[in-house]
C-alpha cells in the first residue's frame, strides 16, 4: 500500500512524485530531493516522551492509557461546560504524544482496528450528491465514536442513535462522507478564517487543503 510504504519511509522519491502528481516543469529539480523531507522527518522522529525508546507494546499501552484519560469533548453534556482554567498556561506541556503524527496515527489506527467492529460499506454511484438521508444514501457502517485524537475524523450522534452516518472506517483511515458538511467546511475555510495566523499560514493551508476540490 502506497500510503503505508510512505509511512514506513520505504517509498522512493520517484514513487512519491508519482503519488503527488508533481509537474516536473513546476518543481525545481535541484530541490526535489528535499521535497518530502518533512514527511521523512516526521516519520522517523520518535516522540520525545516517556514512551519513546521503549517497546512498541509499551508505547501502545501508553497511548491507550492517555486516550482513556482524555474526556471525549464530543460527548460532554451541555450542562457541564469545561470551566475556565486560568492556570493552564503556566503548566508545562509535555511534547506532543503524536508529534510524529503520521506514525502515531498509524499506531492509533491499528490499535482501534482491534476494538472496532468490522466495517463494510458500499457506496452508490455519484456519492457526493447523494449523501442525504432518505435520498438514497450509501449504507455506511459506523465506527464506534472515538475520542478526540484517536481518529481525526469522528462522528457522534448526540441525542439519538446515529441516524446520519458521518464517519466510516476504511483501510485508509476514517473518512467523512457528508457532502453538505464538506461544503460548509469549504465556506468556513474561505470566509471564516479570521485569524492573525491567516496571512502567514492560514491562506496557504486553505488553498492547499481542500479535499472537496472546490
Amino acid at each position, binding site marked *: 500500500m502506497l500510503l503505508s510504504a510512505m509511512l514506513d519511509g520505504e517509498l522512493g522519491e520517484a514513487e512519491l512524485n508519482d503519488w503527488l502528481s508533481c509537474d516536473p516543469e513546476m518543481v525545481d529539480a535541484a530541490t526535489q530531493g528535499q521535497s518530502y523531507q518533512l514527511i521523512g522527518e516526521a516519520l522517523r522522529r520518535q516522540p520525545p516522551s516517556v514512551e519513546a525508546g521503549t517497546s512498541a507494546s509499551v508505547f501502545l499501552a501508553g497511548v491507550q492509557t492517555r486516550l482513556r484519560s482524555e474526556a471525549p469533548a464530543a460527548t460532554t453534556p451541555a450542562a457541564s461546560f469545561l470551566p475556565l482554567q486560568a492556570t493552564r498556561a503556566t503548566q508545562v506541556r509535555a511534547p506532543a504524544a503524536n508529534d510524529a503524527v*503520521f506514525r502515531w496515527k498509524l499506531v492509533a489506527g491499528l490499535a482501534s482496528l482491534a476494538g472496532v467492529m468490522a466495517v463494510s460499506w458500499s457506496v452508490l454511484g455519484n456519492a457526493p450528491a447523494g449523501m442525504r438521508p432518505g435520498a438514497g444514501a450509501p449504507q455506511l457502517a459506523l465506527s464506534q465514536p472515538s475520542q478526540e485524537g484517536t481518529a481525526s475524523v469522528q462522528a457522534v450522534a448526540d441525542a439519538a442513535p446515529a441516524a446520519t452516518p458521518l464517519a466510516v472506517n476504511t483501510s485508509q483511515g476514517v473518512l467523512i462522507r457528508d457532502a453538505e458538511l464538506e461544503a460548509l467546511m469549504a465556506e468556513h475555510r474561505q470566509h471564516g478564517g479570521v485569524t492573525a495566523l491567516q496571512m502567514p499560514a492560514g491562506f496557504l*493551508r486553505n488553498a492547499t487543503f481542500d479535499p472537496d476540490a472546490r
Partner: protein
Amino acid sequence: MTVFRRQSPALRLWLCGSHTEPVSAVFASLQQRGVALLLVLAAGLATPALAQTASAAQEQSRSLTEWLARMHEASRQRAYKGTLVVAAGPHMSASRVWHVCDGAQQMERVETLTGAPRTTIRRNNDVITFAPDSKTAWVEKRESLGLFPELLRAPSNAIPEHYDVRELGVDRVAGYLADRIEVVPRDALRFGYQIWAEQKTGLVVKMQTLGGQGSVLEQVAFSELQLNAPVRMEALKRQMGDTRGYEVHKPTMKKTTAAAEGWQLREAIPGFASMSCHTRGAAGGAEPASMQWVFSDGLASVSLFVETFDPQRHNAEKSAAVGATHSFAKRVDGHWVTALGEVPTATLRRFVHALERTR
C-alpha cells in the same frame, strides 16, 4: 551567540519608552542578562552551563503579539517559493507555492499537487481559483485577509488574554533553522499551536494545531523552501487576469448583521468577538438564503451557519471533526444551526446553545 543579537524585552521596552514593568524589574532583568554576557565574554567559549544561562536569558524574548507581528511582517517582506504539505486527519495535501511582495501588494500562487488540479492566485484580498478540469474559475474578495494587523491592535487585541507563549528553542525545518514557539491557550475553549518561524526572517515554515494533552490535530509545513526566490509579480498578475476559456463564477453573498437577520447570542463566549455576517442564496432564489456568522478570538475562528430546518436532512444532533476543524449541528428555534471552527466541540456547543431567535 544569539545572546548578543537579541535585546531583552525589558531593554527593548525601556528604549521604546513604553515600558510598563516596574523600574526595579527592568534593572533586575538587565542585570541578569549582563551577568550572562560577562560570563560568556570571560569564558571565551560557550560551555554547556553557559549555553544554558544564555538560553535562560533568551526566554520570552518576544511577547505573543510581537511574535505574531514578526510572522506577519515576514510574509509581507519576502519573496519565496516552496512545497507546502498539509496533514489533517487522514487527509494529506501538498501544493507548490509562489509568494512575492513589493511592499504595497502581495501576490501568491498556490498550485495543488494532490487531488483535483486547482490553482489559487491571490492579490491582497482578491482571490481567483482556477479548476482546469471543469474549466471553471471562482472570483472572490476575502475580507478576512485584510483584517490583520487590526487583530493585534489594542484594544481589540484580546489574543494575549486567551493565549500565552513559550519559546522552545530552535529546530531545522525545510533546511532552515527555525525558532519554535508554543502558543498555549489559557482555557479549554480553544486549541494551542506550535509554530516554527524561520530564524532570520520570522517566516512561518511549520505550524501544528494542538488538541487536548498536546496531541497534534493538524499540521502545515514547508517540505522545501527557497527564500528570496525570483518570483515575478508581473507574471502572476498576468496569470490572474487570464480567464480565457474559463467559466467565471462570483459568489452571491450579501453583507448583513445577525441582529438584522433576527439572531443573537444569549451570552458571549469568552474571547470570541463577532467579525462578520453574511447571507448566501442561490442566484435564482431557488433556495432560501443561509446565514454565516463569523467569530474569532484572534487565532481561532468559528462560523455559525443557520439554514431553514429540513426534516428530511436534519434529524439528530451531530458532531464531527476533520483535523483541527470541528463541527456541531443542532436544531434551534425551527432552524438548523451548524457551528464550525478550529476549536473544541465543547466550544461549538456553547455557541449553538447560546444562539437564540429574536423574532
